[in-house]
């Protein structure tokens, strides 16, 4: 079952990306051009490029899926992802641009004159970069699955090959323009379907939005079970069944199902009457202690300590953005600090606009297509919605648009991440030039592809949230204290980065391995930012105060470089003298 419009749309997005990347080959001559596009991009364009690179699989598919399956609390992800740029604007945008380093390791070494700190930050760039690549690859896998009718791994490998090859050939110059285009593509690909479906289905009854209610079918609905699925019924239901249900073979018979767990076999056809409770697959079921209208996120299977888990996500998403390896690099395409501020403000506006739509799609799913609760993966809900709500050609075209936008999301984010990871590998680990960079792009892409094959049981929102948590617990304190606190020493900075980042990684790996699934353990390990970020700050500050002898040299000069308005520097150069003593 090949979805022709969707395949065509995805192919077009991919070809366009590769074509502009190829155009970049001719422009990119020096290694500098390869790593960062020349600094001549105006704020509006630059802001769209930043947003295009930032809006990843989690934003495009993950948030809507989480809202449908876990409830309104998942909206905190979109609030945090947007507010993160406000925090970035307030504390780091202009000074970091003025400092003039391309990457976080560059900043660490330039600010603290420490090779050790550079190595520590490089290691974390690789960890965060690869971690963030996993959900992008997973997204590609589940997007291509229904479109091509292929297994999960085909999409993962396809994205890995396209992105690695494109980066190895083109570098970043082409990517800047592609990223800008991809923001607008993504906005259209989520906004147009959301508005069209909203207009087509109307507001009507909001019964399924009422607090504390499990969703029910608003009209007689027939479900075709693709693969054997275990599902949960919130209440008793009368169902007409053809096929296998609870190990009994039935042929167009009416059965009364009690509330609880049931299993439908492959190929079963179930017809639920109007007002009957909606069956939900186990991945779409919330912990019984919370309800869909709850404004909190939960961790673990029992869903306790919702406030703790919610604050964990808020802290990670608010403070993680600047620590993402592919984001910082974009700030150097601003001509000066003032432009960096204007760019960041525009980013906040662009993100605010985009994040209106995942919520619309999620609410539409709950209201109009509750049968999607039977899907096995919450992340695939957005992809399936258009064709369910608008049968026939229009729905198919809207579905193609969504698939293309989703693929654009994976392409743009993973390109930016791969440039950063390959840059860190080639520059710091292998110490080579452009040739090594190309090689490292392929190596890094291959590792990410292979690592992404087993992660499809984790939700996109969760995986991306974890990458943010690691960034917030390591790079955020390093950058914010490095910019504003003269007494930070390289010993303190290194200790904070290693302890904070290390603790966060351990907590996440423990969660992935299933170490804590209940109560406090689940909340503290599953959303670790709530304690690892304060931990990193404390270690950094206390260690720095104990090692005041190792305050980096020229700290005043660094402060000058980061905080002095460019107007002064320009004038100084015009007068023909350097603005500092060597």
């Amino acid at each position: 079952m090949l979805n022709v419009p969707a395949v065509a749309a995805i192919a077009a997005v991919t070809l366009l990306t590769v074509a502009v990347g190829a155009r970049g080959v001719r422009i990119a001559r020096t290694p500098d051009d390869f790593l960062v596009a020349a600094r001549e991009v105006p704020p509006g364009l630059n802001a769209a490029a930043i947003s295009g690179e930032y809006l990843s699989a989690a934003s495009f598919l993950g948030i809507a899926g989480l809202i449908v399956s876990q409830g309104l609390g998942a909206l905190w992800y979109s609030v945090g992802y947007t507010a993160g740029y406000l925090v970035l604007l307030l504390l780091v945008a202009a000074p970091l641009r003025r400092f003039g380093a391309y990457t976080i390791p560059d900043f660490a070494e330039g600010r603290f004159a420490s090779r050790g700190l550079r190595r520590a930050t490089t290691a974390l760039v690789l960890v965060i970069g690869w971690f963030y690549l996993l959900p992008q690859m997973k997204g590609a896998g589940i997007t291509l699955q229904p479109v091509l009718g292929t297994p999960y791994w085909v999409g993962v490998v396809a994205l890995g090959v396209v992105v690695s090859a494109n980066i190895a050939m083109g570098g970043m110059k082409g990517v800047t323009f592609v990223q800008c285009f991809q923001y607008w593509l993504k906005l259209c690909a989520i906004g147009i379907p959301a508005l069209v479906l909203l207009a087509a289905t109307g507001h009507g009854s909001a019964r399924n939005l009422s607090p504390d209610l499990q969703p029910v079918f608003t009209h007689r609905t027939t479900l075709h079970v693709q693969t054997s699925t275990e599902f949960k019924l919130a209440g008793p239901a009368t169902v007409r069944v053809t096929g296998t249900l609870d190990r009994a073979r039935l042929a167009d018979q009416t059965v009364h199902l009690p509330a609880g767990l049931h299993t439908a076999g492959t190929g079963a056809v179930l017809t639920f009457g109007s007002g009957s409770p909606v069956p939900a697959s186990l991945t779409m079921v919330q912990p019984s202690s919370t309800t869909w209208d709850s404004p909190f996120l939960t961790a673990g299977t029992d869903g306790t300590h919702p406030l703790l888990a919610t604050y964990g996500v808020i802290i990670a998403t608010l403070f993680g953005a600047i620590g993402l390896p592919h984001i910082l690099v974009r700030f150097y395409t601003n001509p000066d600090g003032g432009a960096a501020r204007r760019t960041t403000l525009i980013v906040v506006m662009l993100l605010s606009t985009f994040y209106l739509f995942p919520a619309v799609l999620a609410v539409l799913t709950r209201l109009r297509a509750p049968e999607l609760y039977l899907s096995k993966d919450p992340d695939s809900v957005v992809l399936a919605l258009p064709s369910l709500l608008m049968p026939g050609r229009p729905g198919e075209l809207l579905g193609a648009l969504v698939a293309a936008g989703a693929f654009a999301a994976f392409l743009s984010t993973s390109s930016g991440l791969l440039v950063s990871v390959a840059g860190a590998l080639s520059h710091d680990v292998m110490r080579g030039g452009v040739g090594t960079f190309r090689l490292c792009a392929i190596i890094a892409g291959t590792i990410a592809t292979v690592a992404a094959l087993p992660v499809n049981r984790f939700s996109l929102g969760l995986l991306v949230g974890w990458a943010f948590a690691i960034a917030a617990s390591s790079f955020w304190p390093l950058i914010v204290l490095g910019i504003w606190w003269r007494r930070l020493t390289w010993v303190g900075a290194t200790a904070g980065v290693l302890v904070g980042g290390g603790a966060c990684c351990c907590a996440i790996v423990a969660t992935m391995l299933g170490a804590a699934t209940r109560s406090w353990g689940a909340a503290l390990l599953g959303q670790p930012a709530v304690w690892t970020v304060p931990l990193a700050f404390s270690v950094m500050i206390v260690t720095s105060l104990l090692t005041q002898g190792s305050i980096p040299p020229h700290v005043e000069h660094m402060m000058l470089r980061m905080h002095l308005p460019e107007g002064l520097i320009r004038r100084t150069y015009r007068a023909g003298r350097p603005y500092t003593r060597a």
Partner: protein
Amino acid sequence: MTSPADNGARPRKVVVWQHDQARLQHDVIGLGDVQSDTVYGRLLVRSLTRAQLGLSLMCLSIALAVIASLPVIMALLPRARTVMVVGLPLTLVILGAGIFPMLMAVGWFYNRQASQLEARFIDLVDPVGRRLDA
């Protein structure tokens, strides 16, 4: 001539110290001090960073006060969840749309203030250059 925005921060004549190179070149506290990293230059830069940080922290505390207090308020007032606005749950209206204009407003206010702050600093340390620029 200084504009009213200078608030008396107009460069003053100071006592010339023989051993201070900066003093010999420019007998006015200003850009020369900043460039040459004199005691005065450090004080100037410190006052600038302090003002910038103060502005940033003020804006940050406004935004954080709203964001961080929402979960607590929602936990303390569980009945607020049942409020429906234009047929939609209040939670959805606030977190799905209402909070974004607040973020933009704080960012816009900060950008304006930060630019003004930098312009005032340039006026303070390099009034001549600013006039030449204009």
